[in-house]
Protein backbone atom coordinates (compact mmCIF):
# COMPACT_ATOMS: atom_id res chain seq x y z
CA UNK A 1 0.00 0.00 0.00
CA UNK A 2 2.11 2.88 -1.31
CA UNK A 3 1.55 6.33 0.19
CA UNK A 4 0.62 7.62 -3.28
CA UNK A 5 -1.95 4.88 -4.06
CA UNK A 6 -5.75 5.06 -4.00
CA UNK A 7 -6.19 2.34 -1.32
CA UNK A 8 -3.85 4.24 1.00
CA UNK A 9 -6.05 7.33 0.83
CA UNK A 10 -9.17 5.26 1.58
CA UNK A 11 -7.31 3.83 4.59
CA UNK A 12 -6.18 7.33 5.59
CA UNK A 13 -9.69 8.79 5.46
CA UNK A 14 -10.98 5.94 7.66
CA UNK A 15 -8.13 6.35 10.17
CA UNK A 16 -8.52 10.14 10.31
CA UNK A 17 -12.28 9.98 10.84
CA UNK A 18 -11.94 7.49 13.69
CA UNK A 19 -8.97 9.39 15.13
CA UNK A 20 -10.75 12.73 15.10
CA UNK A 21 -14.01 11.26 16.46
CA UNK A 22 -12.12 9.82 19.44
CA UNK A 23 -10.23 13.07 20.13
CA UNK A 24 -11.69 13.24 23.67
CA UNK A 25 -10.36 9.82 24.60
CA UNK A 26 -6.65 10.23 24.25
CA UNK A 27 -5.79 6.66 25.30
CA UNK A 28 -8.25 5.20 22.81
CA UNK A 29 -6.65 7.31 20.10
CA UNK A 30 -3.28 5.70 20.74
CA UNK A 31 -4.84 2.21 20.68
CA UNK A 32 -6.39 3.18 17.36
CA UNK A 33 -3.06 4.42 16.03
CA UNK A 34 -1.27 1.23 17.09
CA UNK A 35 -4.00 -0.82 15.35
CA UNK A 36 -3.74 1.35 12.21
CA UNK A 37 0.04 0.78 12.18
CA UNK A 38 -0.45 -3.00 12.32
CA UNK A 39 -3.16 -2.93 9.63
CA UNK A 40 -0.86 -0.86 7.36
CA UNK A 41 2.03 -3.30 7.82
CA UNK A 42 -0.17 -6.41 7.43
CA UNK A 43 -1.30 -5.04 4.08
CA UNK A 44 2.29 -5.48 2.82
CA UNK A 45 2.75 -8.93 4.34
CA UNK A 46 1.31 -10.81 7.31
CA UNK A 47 4.90 -11.61 8.34
CA UNK A 48 5.18 -8.04 9.65
CA UNK A 49 2.60 -8.83 12.31
CA UNK A 50 5.55 -10.39 14.15
CA UNK A 51 7.13 -6.93 14.45
CA UNK A 52 5.42 -6.16 17.80
CA UNK A 53 7.58 -8.93 19.32
CA UNK A 54 10.74 -7.04 18.33
CA UNK A 55 9.09 -3.83 19.57
CA UNK A 56 8.19 -5.56 22.86
CA UNK A 57 11.85 -6.51 23.33
CA UNK A 58 13.00 -2.88 22.85
CA UNK A 59 10.19 -1.64 25.09
CA UNK A 60 11.27 -4.07 27.84
CA UNK A 61 14.95 -3.23 27.36
CA UNK A 62 14.02 0.44 27.69
CA UNK A 63 12.34 -0.15 31.05
CA UNK A 64 15.29 -2.19 32.30
CA UNK A 65 17.84 0.38 31.10
CA UNK A 66 15.99 3.03 33.04
CA UNK A 67 15.66 0.80 36.14
CA UNK A 68 19.34 -0.09 36.27
CA UNK A 69 20.32 3.53 35.82
CA UNK A 70 18.79 4.31 39.20
CA UNK A 71 19.26 1.10 41.20
CA UNK A 72 22.65 -0.49 41.67
CA UNK A 73 22.40 -4.31 41.53
CA UNK A 74 24.40 -6.17 44.15
CA UNK A 75 26.39 -8.60 42.05
CA UNK A 76 26.73 -7.40 38.47
CA UNK A 77 28.17 -3.91 38.00
CA UNK A 78 25.36 -1.79 36.61
CA UNK A 79 27.41 -0.38 33.76
CA UNK A 80 28.05 -3.88 32.43
CA UNK A 81 24.41 -4.83 32.78
CA UNK A 82 23.30 -1.72 30.93
CA UNK A 83 25.86 -2.41 28.18
CA UNK A 84 24.49 -5.92 27.84
CA UNK A 85 20.96 -4.59 27.52
CA UNK A 86 22.03 -2.10 24.88
CA UNK A 87 23.96 -4.87 23.09
CA UNK A 88 20.79 -6.96 23.05
CA UNK A 89 18.81 -4.10 21.49
CA UNK A 90 21.57 -3.55 18.90
CA UNK A 91 21.61 -7.28 18.13
CA UNK A 92 17.82 -7.38 17.69
CA UNK A 93 17.59 -4.32 15.45
CA UNK A 94 20.76 -4.81 13.43
CA UNK A 95 19.97 -8.52 13.18
CA UNK A 96 16.52 -7.68 11.84
CA UNK A 97 18.02 -5.14 9.44
CA UNK A 98 20.64 -7.60 8.15
CA UNK A 99 18.12 -10.44 7.86
CA UNK A 100 15.68 -8.33 5.87
CA UNK A 101 18.55 -7.16 3.61
CA UNK A 102 20.20 -10.56 3.14
CA UNK A 103 17.17 -12.84 2.74
CA UNK A 104 15.93 -11.19 -0.50
CA UNK A 105 19.56 -11.06 -1.72
CA UNK A 106 20.07 -14.76 -1.11
CA UNK A 107 16.69 -15.95 -2.32
CA UNK A 108 16.30 -13.64 -5.32
CA UNK A 109 13.15 -11.94 -6.54
CA UNK A 110 11.00 -15.03 -5.94
CA UNK A 111 10.75 -14.31 -2.21
CA UNK A 112 10.35 -10.57 -2.53
CA UNK A 113 6.58 -10.86 -2.04
CA UNK A 114 7.11 -12.27 1.47
CA UNK A 115 9.29 -9.39 2.68
CA UNK A 116 8.47 -6.37 0.50
CA UNK A 117 9.70 -3.88 3.13
CA UNK A 118 13.22 -3.77 4.52
CA UNK A 119 12.10 -1.93 7.68
CA UNK A 120 15.44 -0.12 8.04
CA UNK A 121 13.59 3.00 9.12
CA UNK A 122 11.91 1.04 11.92
CA UNK A 123 15.29 -0.29 13.10
CA UNK A 124 16.96 3.15 13.01
CA UNK A 125 14.08 4.71 14.90
CA UNK A 126 14.00 1.96 17.53
CA UNK A 127 17.72 2.37 18.15
CA UNK A 128 17.21 6.07 18.89
CA UNK A 129 15.05 4.90 21.81
CA UNK A 130 17.39 2.40 23.46
CA UNK A 131 20.61 4.34 22.76
CA UNK A 132 19.13 7.61 24.10
CA UNK A 133 17.93 5.72 27.18
CA UNK A 134 21.37 4.18 27.63
CA UNK A 135 22.93 7.64 27.47
CA UNK A 136 20.43 8.86 30.05
CA UNK A 137 18.91 11.42 27.68
CA UNK A 138 15.38 10.03 27.72
CA UNK A 139 12.71 8.76 30.09
CA UNK A 140 11.11 5.47 29.02
CA UNK A 141 7.42 5.15 28.25
CA UNK A 142 5.49 2.85 30.62
CA UNK A 143 2.81 2.02 28.05
CA UNK A 144 3.43 -0.63 25.40
CA UNK A 145 0.52 0.71 23.35
CA UNK A 146 2.17 4.14 23.24
CA UNK A 147 5.41 2.48 22.24
CA UNK A 148 3.71 0.57 19.40
CA UNK A 149 1.91 3.71 18.22
CA UNK A 150 5.26 5.54 17.96
CA UNK A 151 7.71 2.80 16.91
CA UNK A 152 5.51 1.50 14.07
CA UNK A 153 4.12 4.93 13.10
CA UNK A 154 2.72 4.12 9.67
CA UNK A 155 3.39 7.40 7.78
CA UNK A 156 7.16 7.13 8.28
CA UNK A 157 7.85 3.40 8.72
CA UNK A 158 8.46 2.59 5.05
CA UNK A 159 10.77 5.45 4.00
CA UNK A 160 11.20 7.92 6.84
CA UNK A 161 11.81 10.66 7.81
CA UNK A 162 13.49 9.10 10.86
CA UNK A 163 12.04 10.81 13.92
CA UNK A 164 13.67 10.37 17.31
CA UNK A 165 11.49 8.11 19.46
CA UNK A 166 11.75 10.55 22.35
CA UNK A 167 10.30 13.40 20.28
CA UNK A 168 7.55 11.19 18.85
CA UNK A 169 6.47 9.87 22.26
CA UNK A 170 6.56 13.41 23.65
CA UNK A 171 4.18 14.60 20.92
CA UNK A 172 1.89 11.61 21.31
CA UNK A 173 1.57 12.31 25.04
CA UNK A 174 0.08 15.73 24.25
CA UNK A 175 -3.71 15.99 23.77
CA UNK A 176 -4.65 15.81 20.10
CA UNK A 177 -5.23 19.13 18.42
CA UNK A 178 -5.55 19.97 14.75
CA UNK A 179 -5.59 23.70 14.07
CA UNK A 180 -6.93 25.12 10.81
CA UNK A 181 -3.36 26.15 9.92
CA UNK A 182 -2.00 22.64 10.47
CA UNK A 183 -4.92 21.12 8.54
CA UNK A 184 -4.23 23.39 5.57
CA UNK A 185 -0.51 22.74 5.80
CA UNK A 186 -1.15 18.97 5.89
CA UNK A 187 -3.36 19.09 2.79
CA UNK A 188 -0.83 21.21 0.97
CA UNK A 189 2.03 18.85 1.89
CA UNK A 190 0.09 15.80 0.69
CA UNK A 191 -0.90 17.53 -2.57
CA UNK A 192 2.63 18.75 -3.15
CA UNK A 193 4.04 15.30 -2.44
CA UNK A 194 1.69 13.69 -4.95
CA UNK A 195 2.59 16.20 -7.65
CA UNK A 196 6.30 15.70 -6.98
CA UNK A 197 6.03 11.93 -7.07
CA UNK A 198 3.49 11.24 -9.81
CA UNK A 199 3.91 14.15 -12.18
CA UNK A 200 7.64 14.79 -11.95
CA UNK A 201 9.58 11.81 -10.51
CA UNK A 202 7.58 9.07 -12.23
CA UNK A 203 7.45 11.00 -15.50
CA UNK A 204 11.23 11.49 -15.55
CA UNK A 205 11.81 7.84 -14.60
CA UNK A 206 9.52 6.46 -17.32
CA UNK A 207 10.45 8.82 -20.12
CA UNK A 208 14.15 9.45 -19.60
CA UNK A 209 16.09 7.94 -16.71
CA UNK A 210 15.12 4.25 -16.85
CA UNK A 211 15.70 4.08 -20.62
CA UNK A 212 19.15 5.65 -20.44
CA UNK A 213 20.33 3.66 -17.42
CA UNK A 214 18.98 0.38 -18.86
CA UNK A 215 20.53 0.75 -22.34
CA UNK A 216 23.21 3.48 -22.30
CA UNK A 217 24.78 2.13 -25.52
CA UNK A 218 21.76 3.45 -27.47
CA UNK A 219 22.32 7.07 -26.40
CA UNK A 220 24.82 9.85 -27.07
CA UNK A 221 27.00 11.42 -24.36
CA UNK A 222 24.78 14.51 -24.15
CA UNK A 223 21.65 12.35 -23.76
CA UNK A 224 23.33 10.29 -21.05
CA UNK A 225 24.35 13.50 -19.28
CA UNK A 226 20.73 14.65 -19.42
CA UNK A 227 19.72 11.23 -18.03
CA UNK A 228 22.09 11.66 -15.08
CA UNK A 229 20.70 15.15 -14.36
CA UNK A 230 17.24 13.63 -14.75
CA UNK A 231 18.03 10.97 -12.15
CA UNK A 232 19.28 13.60 -9.70
CA UNK A 233 15.95 15.39 -10.02
CA UNK A 234 13.87 12.19 -10.12
CA UNK A 235 15.42 10.96 -6.87
CA UNK A 236 14.93 14.31 -5.17
CA UNK A 237 11.28 14.65 -6.21
CA UNK A 238 10.52 10.99 -5.48
CA UNK A 239 12.02 11.01 -2.01
CA UNK A 240 11.01 14.51 -0.98
CA UNK A 241 7.54 13.77 -2.41
CA UNK A 242 7.28 10.76 -0.12
CA UNK A 243 8.50 12.85 2.81
CA UNK A 244 5.93 15.57 2.10
CA UNK A 245 3.09 13.02 2.02
CA UNK A 246 4.36 11.34 5.21
CA UNK A 247 4.65 14.71 6.98
CA UNK A 248 1.20 15.79 5.79
CA UNK A 249 -0.43 12.53 6.91
CA UNK A 250 1.32 12.71 10.30
CA UNK A 251 0.15 16.31 10.72
CA UNK A 252 -3.46 15.17 10.23
CA UNK A 253 -2.85 12.92 13.25
CA UNK A 254 -1.37 15.80 15.25
CA UNK A 255 2.27 14.75 14.81
CA UNK A 256 5.03 16.98 13.43
CA UNK A 257 7.60 14.86 11.61
CA UNK A 258 11.01 16.48 11.05
CA UNK A 259 12.04 18.16 7.81
CA UNK A 260 14.14 15.96 5.51
CA UNK A 261 15.19 18.20 2.57
CA UNK A 262 16.26 21.82 2.13
CA UNK A 263 17.13 22.49 -1.53
CA UNK A 264 20.10 20.08 -1.45
CA UNK A 265 21.34 20.80 -4.97
CA UNK A 266 22.05 24.43 -4.03
CA UNK A 267 24.79 23.33 -1.60
CA UNK A 268 28.23 24.88 -1.92
CA UNK A 269 30.11 21.82 -0.62
CA UNK A 270 29.43 18.18 0.16
CA UNK A 271 29.15 18.76 3.92
CA UNK A 272 26.41 21.30 3.27
CA UNK A 273 24.76 18.83 0.88
CA UNK A 274 24.43 16.34 3.74
CA UNK A 275 22.90 19.03 5.93
CA UNK A 276 20.22 19.52 3.26
CA UNK A 277 19.73 15.98 1.84
CA UNK A 278 17.92 13.25 3.81
CA UNK A 279 18.55 15.35 6.90
CA UNK A 280 17.14 12.88 9.44
CA UNK A 281 19.34 10.08 8.08
CA UNK A 282 22.53 12.17 8.08
CA UNK A 283 21.74 13.36 11.63
CA UNK A 284 21.17 9.74 12.62
CA UNK A 285 24.53 8.74 11.11
CA UNK A 286 26.20 11.64 12.93
CA UNK A 287 24.64 11.00 16.36
CA UNK A 288 24.58 7.20 16.41
CA UNK A 289 27.61 6.21 14.31
CA UNK A 290 30.07 9.01 13.46
CA UNK A 291 30.20 10.39 17.01
CA UNK A 292 31.19 6.96 18.37
CA UNK A 293 34.29 6.71 16.17
CA UNK A 294 37.40 7.63 18.20
CA UNK A 295 38.88 10.97 17.11
CA UNK A 296 42.09 12.76 17.88
CA UNK A 297 42.34 16.54 17.75
CA UNK A 298 46.13 16.32 17.41
CA UNK A 299 45.59 14.71 13.99
CA UNK A 300 42.16 16.07 13.10
CA UNK A 301 42.26 15.61 9.33
CA UNK A 302 43.41 12.01 9.59
CA UNK A 303 41.08 10.94 12.39
CA UNK A 304 38.03 12.75 10.99
CA UNK A 305 38.68 11.53 7.46
CA UNK A 306 38.64 7.89 8.46
CA UNK A 307 35.51 8.44 10.59
CA UNK A 308 33.77 10.11 7.60
CA UNK A 309 34.91 7.35 5.27
CA UNK A 310 33.70 4.46 7.41
CA UNK A 311 30.45 6.20 8.39
CA UNK A 312 29.56 6.89 4.78
CA UNK A 313 30.62 3.43 3.60
CA UNK A 314 28.32 1.89 6.19
CA UNK A 315 25.63 4.40 5.17
CA UNK A 316 26.15 3.29 1.57
CA UNK A 317 25.89 -0.39 2.44
CA UNK A 318 22.63 0.27 4.26
CA UNK A 319 21.09 1.13 0.86
CA UNK A 320 22.06 -2.30 -0.41
CA UNK A 321 24.86 -4.80 -0.11
CA UNK A 322 26.67 -4.17 -3.40
CA UNK A 323 29.89 -2.65 -4.76
CA UNK A 324 27.91 0.24 -6.21
CA UNK A 325 26.58 1.42 -2.85
CA UNK A 326 29.96 0.86 -1.21
CA UNK A 327 31.64 3.04 -3.88
CA UNK A 328 28.88 5.65 -3.55
CA UNK A 329 29.40 5.82 0.24
CA UNK A 330 33.19 5.83 -0.06
CA UNK A 331 33.11 8.71 -2.57
CA UNK A 332 30.97 10.79 -0.21
CA UNK A 333 33.16 9.86 2.78
CA UNK A 334 36.32 10.87 0.91
CA UNK A 335 34.71 14.12 -0.24
CA UNK A 336 33.73 14.97 3.35
CA UNK A 337 37.36 14.37 4.39
CA UNK A 338 38.55 16.70 1.60
CA UNK A 339 36.07 19.42 2.68
CA UNK A 340 37.22 19.02 6.30
CA UNK A 341 40.89 19.39 5.31
CA UNK A 342 40.03 22.36 3.06
CA UNK A 343 38.11 24.11 5.84
CA UNK A 344 41.03 23.72 8.23
CA UNK A 345 43.38 25.15 5.64
CA UNK A 346 41.15 27.94 4.35
CA UNK A 347 38.86 29.00 7.19
CA UNK A 348 36.77 31.45 5.18
CA UNK A 349 33.93 30.13 2.97
CA UNK A 350 33.97 31.10 -0.74
CA UNK A 351 33.14 34.78 -1.19
CA UNK A 352 31.82 36.47 -4.31
CA UNK A 353 29.22 35.11 -6.71
CA UNK A 354 31.72 33.60 -9.17
CA UNK A 355 33.39 31.44 -6.52
CA UNK A 356 30.01 30.48 -5.06
CA UNK A 357 28.70 29.52 -8.50
CA UNK A 358 31.82 27.44 -9.14
CA UNK A 359 31.54 25.72 -5.72
CA UNK A 360 27.82 25.06 -6.28
CA UNK A 361 28.34 23.59 -9.77
CA UNK A 362 31.27 21.49 -8.61
CA UNK A 363 29.24 20.08 -5.69
CA UNK A 364 26.20 19.39 -7.88
CA UNK A 365 28.26 17.57 -10.51
CA UNK A 366 30.11 15.56 -7.89
CA UNK A 367 26.76 14.47 -6.42
CA UNK A 368 25.49 13.60 -9.93
CA UNK A 369 28.65 11.57 -10.55
CA UNK A 370 28.04 9.56 -7.37
CA UNK A 371 24.35 9.08 -8.30
CA UNK A 372 25.55 7.05 -11.32
CA UNK A 373 26.80 4.34 -8.93
CA UNK A 374 23.70 4.73 -6.79
CA UNK A 375 21.26 4.25 -9.68
CA UNK A 376 23.03 1.73 -11.91
CA UNK A 377 21.92 -1.85 -11.35
CA UNK A 378 25.48 -3.22 -11.40
CA UNK A 379 29.03 -1.93 -11.37
CA UNK A 380 29.31 -2.84 -15.05
CA UNK A 381 26.22 -0.69 -15.83
CA UNK A 382 27.75 2.24 -13.93
CA UNK A 383 30.98 1.88 -15.92
CA UNK A 384 28.96 1.70 -19.15
CA UNK A 385 27.32 5.04 -18.25
CA UNK A 386 30.76 6.55 -17.55
CA UNK A 387 32.13 5.19 -20.83
CA UNK A 388 29.10 6.67 -22.64
CA UNK A 389 29.75 10.05 -21.03
CA UNK A 390 33.40 9.90 -22.08
CA UNK A 391 32.59 9.05 -25.70
CA UNK A 392 31.93 12.76 -26.51
CA UNK A 393 29.05 12.08 -28.92
CA UNK A 394 26.61 14.95 -29.16
CA UNK A 395 22.99 14.49 -30.19
CA UNK A 396 19.62 15.08 -28.54
CA UNK A 397 17.47 13.19 -31.07
CA UNK A 398 16.20 10.60 -28.58
CA UNK A 399 14.99 13.09 -25.96
CA UNK A 400 11.46 14.43 -26.49
CA UNK A 401 10.79 18.16 -26.00
CA UNK A 402 8.24 17.59 -23.15
CA UNK A 403 10.93 15.68 -21.22
CA UNK A 404 13.27 18.68 -21.44
CA UNK A 405 10.35 20.87 -20.36
CA UNK A 406 9.69 18.73 -17.26
CA UNK A 407 13.42 18.70 -16.46
CA UNK A 408 13.58 22.50 -16.62
CA UNK A 409 10.37 22.81 -14.58
CA UNK A 410 11.80 20.41 -11.97
CA UNK A 411 15.08 22.35 -11.79
CA UNK A 412 13.24 25.65 -11.30
CA UNK A 413 10.85 24.10 -8.74
CA UNK A 414 13.82 22.83 -6.74
CA UNK A 415 15.23 26.36 -6.59
CA UNK A 416 12.00 28.07 -5.46
CA UNK A 417 12.53 30.23 -2.36
CA UNK A 418 11.88 28.13 0.74
CA UNK A 419 9.30 30.54 2.19
CA UNK A 420 6.82 30.09 -0.68
CA UNK A 421 5.33 27.03 1.03
CA UNK A 422 4.45 28.97 4.19
CA UNK A 423 2.89 31.70 2.06
CA UNK A 424 0.80 29.13 0.20
CA UNK A 425 -0.24 27.51 3.50
CA UNK A 426 -1.37 30.90 4.85
CA UNK A 427 -3.47 31.45 1.74
CA UNK A 428 -5.01 27.98 1.75
CA UNK A 429 -6.05 28.25 5.41
CA UNK A 430 -8.78 30.65 4.28
CA UNK A 431 -10.39 27.86 2.27
CA UNK A 432 -12.85 25.71 4.31
CA UNK A 433 -11.38 22.35 5.34
CA UNK A 434 -14.04 20.30 3.52
CA UNK A 435 -13.29 22.19 0.30
CA UNK A 436 -9.59 21.41 0.79
CA UNK A 437 -10.52 17.73 1.26
CA UNK A 438 -12.59 17.71 -1.93
CA UNK A 439 -9.81 19.48 -3.82
CA UNK A 440 -7.39 16.84 -2.57
CA UNK A 441 -9.65 14.01 -3.74
CA UNK A 442 -9.94 15.74 -7.14
CA UNK A 443 -6.18 16.17 -7.32
CA UNK A 444 -5.59 12.49 -6.55
CA UNK A 445 -8.03 11.43 -9.29
CA UNK A 446 -6.57 13.90 -11.78
CA UNK A 447 -3.00 12.83 -11.10
CA UNK A 448 -3.87 9.13 -11.27
CA UNK A 449 -5.46 9.77 -14.67
CA UNK A 450 -2.57 11.90 -15.95
CA UNK A 451 0.05 9.53 -14.60
CA UNK A 452 -1.60 6.77 -16.64
CA UNK A 453 0.20 3.66 -15.50
CA UNK A 454 -0.33 4.54 -11.85
CA UNK A 455 2.31 5.09 -9.25
CA UNK A 456 5.70 3.38 -9.32
CA UNK A 457 7.08 2.31 -5.92
CA UNK A 458 8.97 5.01 -4.01
CA UNK A 459 12.73 4.61 -4.53
CA UNK A 460 13.52 4.76 -0.82
CA UNK A 461 10.79 2.21 -0.05
CA UNK A 462 13.35 -0.37 -1.24
CA UNK A 463 15.89 0.60 1.41
Amino acid sequence: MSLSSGPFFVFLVAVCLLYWLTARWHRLQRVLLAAANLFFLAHFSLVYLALPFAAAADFGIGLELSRWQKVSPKRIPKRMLRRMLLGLSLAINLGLLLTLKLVPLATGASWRWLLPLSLSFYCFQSLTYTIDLYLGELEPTRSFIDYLAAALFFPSITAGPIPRMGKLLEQMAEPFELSAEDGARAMLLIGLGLVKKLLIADYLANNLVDRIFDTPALYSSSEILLGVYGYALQLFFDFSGYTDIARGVALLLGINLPENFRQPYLSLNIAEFWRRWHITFSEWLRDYLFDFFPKNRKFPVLSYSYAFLFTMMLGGLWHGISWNFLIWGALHGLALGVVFAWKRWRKAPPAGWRLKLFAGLLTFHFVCFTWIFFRAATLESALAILRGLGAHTWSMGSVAVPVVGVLLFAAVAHCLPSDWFERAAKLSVRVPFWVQGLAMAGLILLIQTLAGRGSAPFVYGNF
Partner: protein
Amino acid sequence: MEQHARILKILQRVSGKQVNPGQNESLFASGLLDSFALTDFVSGLEEEFGVTIPDSDLSARKFDTIVKVDAYLSAKTK
Protein backbone atom coordinates in the same frame (compact mmCIF):
# COMPACT_ATOMS: atom_id res chain seq x y z
CA MET B 1 31.36 38.09 32.02
CA GLU B 2 28.75 35.42 32.67
CA GLN B 3 29.23 31.94 31.22
CA HIS B 4 26.43 32.25 28.66
CA ALA B 5 27.90 35.39 27.08
CA ARG B 6 31.35 33.82 26.91
CA ILE B 7 29.95 30.73 25.16
CA LEU B 8 28.10 32.97 22.73
CA LYS B 9 31.28 34.89 21.93
CA ILE B 10 33.06 31.65 20.97
CA LEU B 11 30.09 30.48 18.94
CA GLN B 12 30.03 33.77 17.02
CA ARG B 13 33.73 33.53 16.33
CA VAL B 14 33.57 29.92 15.11
CA SER B 15 30.41 30.32 13.02
CA GLY B 16 31.50 33.70 11.67
CA LYS B 17 28.00 35.06 12.33
CA GLN B 18 26.74 37.61 14.85
CA VAL B 19 24.01 35.33 16.16
CA ASN B 20 22.14 34.99 19.43
CA PRO B 21 20.40 31.60 19.37
CA GLY B 22 17.73 30.63 21.89
CA GLN B 23 18.80 28.68 24.97
CA ASN B 24 17.36 25.43 23.64
CA GLU B 25 17.79 26.05 19.92
CA SER B 26 19.79 23.32 18.19
CA LEU B 27 23.13 24.81 17.11
CA PHE B 28 23.56 21.96 14.62
CA ALA B 29 20.08 22.09 13.09
CA SER B 30 20.36 25.87 12.66
CA GLY B 31 23.68 25.42 10.83
CA LEU B 32 25.76 27.39 13.35
CA LEU B 33 27.84 24.31 14.16
CA ASP B 34 28.65 21.12 12.30
CA SER B 35 31.03 18.23 12.86
CA PHE B 36 33.76 20.32 11.20
CA ALA B 37 33.28 23.42 13.35
CA LEU B 38 32.82 21.44 16.56
CA THR B 39 36.58 20.89 16.96
CA ASP B 40 37.22 24.66 16.79
CA PHE B 41 34.29 25.37 19.10
CA VAL B 42 35.54 22.87 21.71
CA SER B 43 39.11 24.22 21.47
CA GLY B 44 37.67 27.72 21.97
CA LEU B 45 35.81 26.55 25.09
CA GLU B 46 38.98 24.95 26.48
CA GLU B 47 40.92 28.15 25.98
CA GLU B 48 38.23 30.45 27.35
CA PHE B 49 37.24 28.38 30.41
CA GLY B 50 40.56 26.69 31.16
CA VAL B 51 39.06 23.20 31.04
CA THR B 52 40.22 20.04 29.29
CA ILE B 53 37.66 18.41 27.05
CA PRO B 54 38.55 14.85 26.01
CA ASP B 55 38.30 13.90 22.34
CA SER B 56 35.75 11.25 23.28
CA ASP B 57 33.36 14.07 24.20
CA LEU B 58 33.44 15.57 20.67
CA SER B 59 29.83 14.76 20.03
CA ALA B 60 26.97 16.80 18.63
CA ARG B 61 24.60 15.66 21.35
CA LYS B 62 26.84 17.12 24.10
CA PHE B 63 27.10 20.58 22.51
CA ASP B 64 23.82 20.85 20.63
CA THR B 65 22.32 23.77 22.58
CA ILE B 66 23.60 26.65 24.73
CA VAL B 67 21.94 24.97 27.73
CA LYS B 68 23.83 21.72 27.09
CA VAL B 69 27.15 23.55 26.63
CA ASP B 70 26.46 25.50 29.81
CA ALA B 71 25.66 22.32 31.77
CA TYR B 72 28.72 20.54 30.37
CA LEU B 73 31.05 23.38 31.38
CA SER B 74 29.44 23.72 34.81
CA ALA B 75 30.04 20.00 35.43
CA LYS B 76 33.67 20.42 34.31
CA THR B 77 34.43 23.47 36.43
CA LYS B 78 32.82 22.11 39.64
